[in-house]
Structure formats: C-alpha cells, structure tokens
C-alpha cells in the first residue's frame, strides 16, 4: 500500500523537473516537452487524490485527467504548428533569438 504522500512527492518532483526544463531549454520544442511533463505531474495528483482522499467523487479525478489530456493534445498541436511557422520565417527555433515582439 503506497501512501498518498509518495505520489504527491513524485508529482512535485516531476513538476519541478518540468519547471527547470521550461526555464533552461533554448529550443521552443524543448520548452513544449517540459510543459508536457508539468501537465503529467498535475494528472498524477488528480488520480492520486481520487483514489486516496476520503469523501471525494471517485470519477471526478479520472474525468479531469482525461480532459487535461485532450486539451494537452490540442495545445501540443497548436504549439508545434506555431513552432513550424516561426521556423519558416526565422530559420531558428531558439527562443533567445526570437525577439520579434520585444522591440
């Protein structure tokens, strides 16, 4: 029997890794991958709460996680097509060199 705290610590660690990646990656694709890690950390928490917290609706957590996955798929599709669009115009996906809206 794994306690709830173990899942919470695991998901906090995954979230921290995702934040680290989103802050350090130069490539816009790497940042999108780190964001996927962050969304997964949130999903682990939702499922763990649905199973281990007394008095919650057991279907609410999995349902929320399924919707998060659907929206993550949509976000990835739009984000990646924006990356393709930027690459076509700038020949780079390095976020340090994309400063079109900075000045």
């Amino acid at each position, binding site marked *: 029997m794994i306690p709830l705290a173990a899942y919470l610590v695991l998901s906090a660690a995954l979230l*921290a890794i995702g934040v680290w990646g989103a*802050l*350090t990656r130069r490539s816009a694709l790497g940042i999108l991958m780190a964001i996927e890690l962050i969304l997964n950390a949130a999903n682990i928490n939702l499922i763990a709460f649905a*199973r281990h917290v007394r008095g919650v609706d*057991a279907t609410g957590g999995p349902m929320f996680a399924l*919707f998060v996955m659907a929206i993550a798929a949509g976000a990835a599709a739009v984000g990646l097509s924006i990356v*393709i669009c930027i690459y076509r115009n700038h020949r780079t996906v390095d976020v340090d060199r994309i400063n079109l809206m900075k000045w």
Partner: protein
Amino acid sequence: MSDPLGLLTWTTFGAVAAMTLGGGVLTVTLRNLFHAVLGLVVSLLGVAGVFLMLASEFVAVIHVLIYVGAIVTLFLFVIMLTHRIDSAEEPQTSRQWFAALILGAGFFAMAVSALLRAPWAVASPPVEAASVETLGREMLTTHVLAFEAVSLLLIVALVGAVTLARREETRP
C-alpha cells in the same frame, strides 16, 4: 515493510518513479532533441505505470494512446522539420541553467513541505477506482457540457494548427 507483498509494491513503485523522474531529467538535459524525445517517452510510460498502480487502467491506456501515440509522434515530426542533424552540437541549454536548477529545487522543497504538512483526509482502505462503465456514463451525462466544449476546442485547435503550419502560396 516486512510482508513480501508490500515489498513488491514498493519495488514496483520505485521502478515506476525512477522511470518517470529519470526520463524527465533526460528530457530536460539531453543535448540532442531526438534523444530528449526518447527520454520523454520513458517518462510518459512511467506516468502510465503510476496510473496503473492507482488502479486507473483506463486512464493509463488513454494516456499511452494520446501521449506516446500522438503527441510524441508530432514532436518527432516537428523536430525533423525544424532541426538540422548537424545542429545537435549547438548548446541546448541557456546560460541560466544553474539558477533555474536552484529555483526548481527550491520550488520542490517548498511544495513537498507544504504537501506533507497538509491534513489530508486519507481514505483507508483506498476509494474504489471508477470503472470504465462509470466513467463513460459520467462523461456523457454529468460532464456532457465539458465533453462538447472539448470537442469544439479540438476542432478549433486542429483547424488553427493546419492554418498556421500551411505554406502560404498566394503571397503578393
């Protein structure tokens, strides 16, 4: 943990957690983006294992289908479209990686100290996980508005993605 079943459970959890976190670290640190995507696959399979340990097998299957099946494939295609093979030697992490590492570690410490101190109403034994039948019924009754909204959002996202990624041919 003296009983063998508990030890087995903990061993499985340790393996799954190591996959999740190790894959995540590889995703963030590897220089070649192709290898980073492979790390992401390992991490996502680990997350599916966590879902299985929480007795949510339907969510685990959908997770593998959507993430490993669709999103990772999309990432691979976009990497092939936007990165030259010889660009693997370029530095992939910014100069602030150490500061970001400190920030991430601090965030982790803060989150863990808050989560472990919170008075959760822990259920023991755990709540019976929702079956696929219950999930399907709930999705089309209680959550039908959200379901329809998500289908609309996916349509808009797909049309937007096609419009953005399409090569413009009629530029004056």
